[in-house]
């Protein structure tokens, strides 16, 4: 997703004009401190929190790690089966229990209740707000209700990294005790994020040092990045209703167009064409018998930058744990395509994808040898 020009302007303004360290006491430091405080106010408002609840981090992964590792306090951890690795891997490292999702990618609330009932010391439940691969929006208020009823002592974390562009996080995550976000997912720069920590939630710091962020995240703040994140968050929240309407229409045209052109294409996890539980910015498709890596290569050549599953460190496509958790058969998952739309996506972009995707799929199918 491109960085919003207003965020770029703010980033360069702060970098050039406000070189102070916000922890200092001289005039330049105080000027930087002011920028940081303003940004904290904006993020608090957009996320439905108090300014003192916002901890700035170096991105979404750090925020997720801090929540999971910092708030689990030796108790049991429960996560959904479609969490991002930034939540899943530290949680699994703590011996986390996993609650299932249904075929649409949304958490099975009865399954969650069963997992919670089977444990005595649940300290942390983590369920993402919007899934990063298929865009399923989780019913977080209902999750919070299940957690309150079955394990009242647990805290609820939500990884809202994918959510801010599409969902009113302040409302949807009002019952969450911990909320992670990442700037580059809503038009801010990479390497900046935040964790909301509600008052009274015990959080052990992971990064220890000068005591910044009220002892919850030491290290001199990335003032310019944080200011740019706040600028992007402000604009995203202000224009969200309008953007969601526009991009939902684009996404529907894209998905419907590909489905019409490729009759056996599958819109992953969508039942009877109902996309109401999906973030506007994601179109996830599977083409049986097509290899995702080859498809991405051809799309890249046609000027369409897309993804398959998650990527490993070497850049090769790895099988998707999310699709497996949703029960998508391997032969479908192997031909998966994730087309993402954002604030800058245009009708012309959709036209280009609508031309390129069917052509690439047809070409791969025509050229495929039958394996004896």
């Amino acid at each position, binding site marked *: 997703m491109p960085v919003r020009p207003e965020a770029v302007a703010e980033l360069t303004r702060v970098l050039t004009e406000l070189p102070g360290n916000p922890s200092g006491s001289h005039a330049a430091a105080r000027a930087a401190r002011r920028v940081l405080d303003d940004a904290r106010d904006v993020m608090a408002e957009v996320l439905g929190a108090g300014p003192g609840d916002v901890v700035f981090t170096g991105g979404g992964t750090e925020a997720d790690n801090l929540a999971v590792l910092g708030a689990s306090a030796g108790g049991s951890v429960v996560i959904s089966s479609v969490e991002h690795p930034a939540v899943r891997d530290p949680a699994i490292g703590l011996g986390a229990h996993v609650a299932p999702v249904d075929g649409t990618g949304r958490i099975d609330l009865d399954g969650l209740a069963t997992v919670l009932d089977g444990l005595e010391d649940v300290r942390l439940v983590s369920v993402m707000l919007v899934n990063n691969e298929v865009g399923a929006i989780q019913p977080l208020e209902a999750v919070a209700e299940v957690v309150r009823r079955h394990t009242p002592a647990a805290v609820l974390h939500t990884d809202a990294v994918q959510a801010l562009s599409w969902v009113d996080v302040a409302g949807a995550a009002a019952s969450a005790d911990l909320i992670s976000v990442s700037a580059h997912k809503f038009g801010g720069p990479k390497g900046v994020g935040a964790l909301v920590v509600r008052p009274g939630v015990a959080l052990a710091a992971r990064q220890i040092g000068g005591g910044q962020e009220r002892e919850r995240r030491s290290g001199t703040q990335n003032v310019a990045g944080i200011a740019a994140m706040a600028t992007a968050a402000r604009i995203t929240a202000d224009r969200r209703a309008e953007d969601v309407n526009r991009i939902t229409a684009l996404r529907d045209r894209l998905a419907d167009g590909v489905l019409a052109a490729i009759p056996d294409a599958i819109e992953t996890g969508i039942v009877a064409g109902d996309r109401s539980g999906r973030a506007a910015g994601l179109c996830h498709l599977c083409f049986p018998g097509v*290899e995702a*890596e*080859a498809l991405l*290569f*051809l799309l890249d050549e046609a000027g369409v930058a897309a993804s398959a599953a998650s990527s*490993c*460190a*070497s*850049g*090769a*496509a*790895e099988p998707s744990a999310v699709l497996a958790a949703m029960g998508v058969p391997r032969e479908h998952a192997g031909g998966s395509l994730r087309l993402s739309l954002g604030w800058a996506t245009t009708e012309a972009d959709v036209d280009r994808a609508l031309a390129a995707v069917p052509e690439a799929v047809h*070409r*791969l199918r025509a*050229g*495929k*040898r039958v394996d004896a």
Partner: protein
Amino acid sequence: MSGGVDSSVTAALLAEAGHEVHGVTLRLWGGEADQGCCSVADVEDARRVADHLGLDHHTFNFGPDFDRHVVEPYVAAHAAGRTPNPCIECNRHLKFDRLLERAEVLGFDAVATGHHARVVGRPDGTRRVARGADGPKDQSYVLHMLDQAALARVLLPVGDLTKAAVRERAADLGLRTAAKPDSQDVCFIQTAAGRQGFLADRIDLTPGRVVDATGLQVGEVEAVELVTVGQRRGLGLRKQQEPSFVTSVDVGTATVTIGRKEDLLDEEVALDDLVWADGPVAGPVLVQCSAHGDPRPGVLLGSVLTWDEAQPRVAPGQSVVFYDGDEVLGGAIAR
């Protein structure tokens, strides 16, 4: 592009010649800690060389195919007391099948690799793999499965150069891989536990008896699955006047039989899975039975090779490759 010097120079030579070149690294095996092939560090080397040359670089994940066609058969062969050659199976099923197929559907005319061998054209229009210019580095043995369809689309540009010339070229071009050490044989076994540890995680290793030609027990081994015909060491033998060699391995009875050097000599080799560059060949051929072994003359008739002079037994599972001079005619697996 494996991240080594040969494939780096291959890419450079083709780009210099004016081809539209894309670098591809195959991800076959290994996590981040793996220091062997397709480790993250090697992918980075390949990508940075491509960047330096101004080429696009892609990583293709053929891990499931590698498991199915290389690792699983490798383990099964050892379990049966045979001596597999996984590099040959990787070339057969991954580099010159899966990758060729992928390249074709993506619209590429050819796949080039950094093997030290050459593709030569013959007067009748057919092609053959021939030995590379650097004799000791020649890799024609591991490319013997290339048939006409593959040979028409495979380029081996460094086959005309010595290894020293390849390194010199890489250094001249400022490639970061210029002084990188050559890769080792079995790329997917790199841990300290080695082959034994790798196999022990996947199959039950069977302690075995070592017997002489009369059936008298003279030693023991920890795992018969790890013993190869022709082996001399690691047999738990007392010091002997005359060197002894493994003449056969029977996993079923966990028995390794040893003998003197002359007991190891065979007049014939029975062959399975014959493949040909351009149709079956019968009659006198030169025969090579290991990657850098000396070629010996023999006569091929059907699926039996008869040596001109008796030769040490070929371990079952090894590839047997037939040459006409420096050109590869085909190959097979020793039964």
